[in-house]
């Protein structure tokens, strides 16, 4: 159900005027009118702490609007057919004669080339959301409407090529027409509105389009883990009743939807999503089923298996502990409403989803929903390492527990840890920003950044950036920590000074993946900052959040005082509290 215009206006009118502004550009060649309203409303709902302002450009000048783009956090570029050639619109009369079709194709080619170069230039500084023509083509070709003409096929092919080419650019996100089709299935073109006001969309289409593009502006962080039940979820049948040979996931037994579910989970595991099993079952039977029936979701894709007759909520608690993440980051899938309710009561943040085993249509819609929950911009090196590193971390924690109490720093020295540090700010490293925007526990203040905001800050001459990768004998963890701050020269009174006062680093962002805990990596990072940046003092832009207890504990330990906003750590203080160096530290050859 898309938002109505009346609701959109009320949402905008109820926005907090004093909240920090969120400047977003809407670039299109038509009158933005209601699309601007719907965008404003969806931005208000998606960014509740901000006061969105939608900037628009000049009518009929899409390329010029792109060239003038500046000072916004993101831009939405909505392209319609008349932007590629005015003869493909209703407001200009250049002719639809058959002899003109080739010329229209040539003009569309030139417009596409121009769009490609201007989008590429704009995307270097500002994240862009692009939407290619969503309206039906005007009846310009000479064929009957049911027959696709060579002209229209070539036209669509050219636009598809442009779309594919631009999708490779960093900072560019393209609206998927299939998603828009699902939300905007009724009439899209409003002839009256286009002819009288230059706004070509029906209200319902404008509303749906705004919803989709704002989701791309928001670009929500994907969930981190999926916890699945087995019986009548991963496969059809109750293992304890029908036995290992009685469960199925195939066409013959009308259980293909379970095979598709397994296929999706296997794909998610390969994309870096953590998969666990929580099932009330006989452990040995489950092991036999995985060994003998060779499901599409492999045993190696799953960690941990919680298979016993105890409460599901306790299984979920242990899985969250093994993954070291919070319930907000997981989706639980089960065919039992009662088990889901029991999990939800104990872990309110978890997204609990019923597997509709008797309804393949609803189950297919669940697969789409899961893909949406775990959708990523791209698969990083760290995604490929995640499953193995979570297992290795569990092994490490187990080994630490075997050591005598207080011996963990000695133990860490035995694991051959190696840190690789990079202070290179350009080009924008999407993994670093992803870490900043999704890490909750070891996080200095919970602050999140839009791409343009992050890039602008790092481009400042005094900005310091450090990305940390890690490996040890348990395997590589990939890039696991990011520190960013500003170098300050301060005089004896602690005020900013450009004289020969001591230097201080004000750390504004510091995050570390929970997979890297218990390795004393945070101390190595601080040691490097003091040694390499030649600073006498660190100042932390600390803010308590509901989930950053690990950061609070670390600051308390290293400073021997509770963490508080703008707390400081001197070199001398650090040297008193830090353990001896445990790891090999090397700087990346790229800087």
């Amino acid at each position, binding site marked *: 159900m898309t938002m*109505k*215009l*009346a609701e959109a*206006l*009320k949402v905008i*009118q109820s926005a907090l005027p004093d909240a920090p502004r969120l400047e977003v550009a809407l670039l299109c060649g038509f009158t933005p*009118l*209601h699309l601007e*309203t719907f965008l404003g409303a969806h931005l208000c709902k998606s960014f509740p702490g901000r006061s969105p302002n939608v900037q628009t450009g000049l009518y009929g000048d899409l390329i010029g609007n792109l060239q003038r783009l500046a000072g916004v956090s993101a831009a939405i570029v909505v392209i319609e057919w008349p932007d590629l050639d005015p003869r493909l619109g209703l407001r200009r009369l250049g002719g639809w004669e058959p002899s003109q079709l080739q010329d229209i194709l040539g003009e569309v080619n030139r417009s596409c080339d121009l769009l490609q170069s201007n989008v590429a230039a704009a995307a270097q500084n500002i994240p862009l959301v692009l939407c290619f023509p969503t309206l039906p083509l005007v009846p310009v070709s000479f064929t009957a409407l049911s027959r696709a003409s060579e002209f229209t096929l070539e036209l669509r092919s050219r636009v598809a090529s442009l779309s594919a080419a631009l999708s490779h650019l960093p900072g560019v996100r393209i609206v998927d027409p299939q998603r828009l089709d699902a939300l905007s299935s009724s009439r899209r073109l409003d002839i*009256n509105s286009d*002819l*009288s*006001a230059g*706004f070509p969309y029906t*209200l319902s289409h404008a509303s749906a389009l705004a919803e989709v593009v704002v989701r791309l502006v928001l670009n929500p962080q994907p969930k981190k883990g999926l916890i699945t039940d087995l019986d009548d979820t991963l496969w059809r049948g109750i293992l304890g009743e029908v036995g290992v040979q009685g469960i199925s996931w195939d066409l013959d037994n009308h259980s293909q939807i379970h095979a598709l579910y397994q296929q999706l989970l296997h794909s998610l595991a390969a994309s870096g999503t953590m998969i666990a099993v929580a099932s009330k079952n006989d452990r040995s039977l489950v092991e036999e089923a995985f060994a003998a029936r060779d499901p599409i979701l492999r045993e190696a894709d799953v960690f941990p298996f919680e298979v016993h007759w105890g409460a599901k909520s306790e299984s979920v608690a242990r899985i969250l502990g093994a993954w070291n993440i919070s319930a907000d980051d997981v989706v639980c899938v089960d065919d039992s409403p009662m088990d889901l309710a029991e999990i939800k009561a104990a872990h309110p943040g978890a997204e609990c989803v019923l597997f509709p085993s008797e309804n393949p249509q609803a189950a297919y819609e669940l697969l789409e929903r899961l893909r949406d929950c775990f959708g990523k911009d791209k698969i990083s090196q760290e995604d490929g390492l995640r499953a193995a590193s979570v297992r290795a971390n569990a092994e490490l924690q187990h080994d630490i527990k075997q050591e005598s109490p207080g011996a963990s720093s000695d133990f860490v020295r035995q694991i051959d840890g190696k840190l690789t540090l990079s202070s290179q700010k350009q080009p924008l490293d999407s993994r670093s920003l992803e870490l900043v925007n999704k890490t909750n526990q070891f996080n200095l203040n919970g602050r999140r950044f839009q791409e343009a905001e992050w890039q602008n800050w790092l481009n400042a001459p005094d900005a310091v950036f450090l990305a940390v990768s890690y490996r040890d004998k348990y395997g590589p963890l990939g890039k696991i920590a990011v520190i960013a701050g500003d170098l300050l020269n301060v005089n004896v009174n602690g005020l900013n000074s450009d004289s020969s006062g001591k230097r201080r680093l004000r750390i504004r962002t510091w995050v570390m993946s929970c997979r890297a805990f218990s390795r004393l990596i945070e101390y190595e990072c601080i040691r490097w900052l003091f040694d390499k940046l030649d600073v006498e003092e660190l100042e932390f832009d600390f803010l308590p959040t509901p989930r950053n207890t690990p950061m609070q504990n670390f600051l308390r330990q290293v400073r021997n005082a509770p963490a508080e906003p703008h707390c400081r750590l001197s070199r001398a203080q650090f040297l008193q509290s830090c353990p001896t160096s445990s790891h090999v530290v090397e700087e990346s050859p790229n800087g």
Partner: protein
Amino acid sequence: MAEIESRLANCFATAFPELEPAEIPAVSMGSLASWDSLAGITLLSLIEEEFGIGISPDDAAGLVSYQLILDYLRTLSSEDAK
């Protein structure tokens, strides 16, 4: 008919949130500075959405006050009833 007035007044209140409810029945394009052409399009779109109707450009040109719009909607309603 009272229902039409109430729904129409809601459309005006949404399009022109600065108006007091008592001011709405007397409002016209000439008396309200914020009722410019863009605000007029928004108002008529709200009315189309609320009443599930399409307003032709010819009709739209004459709908420049609350009273004229109310009369227009009443006419449509009575035509529907026939």
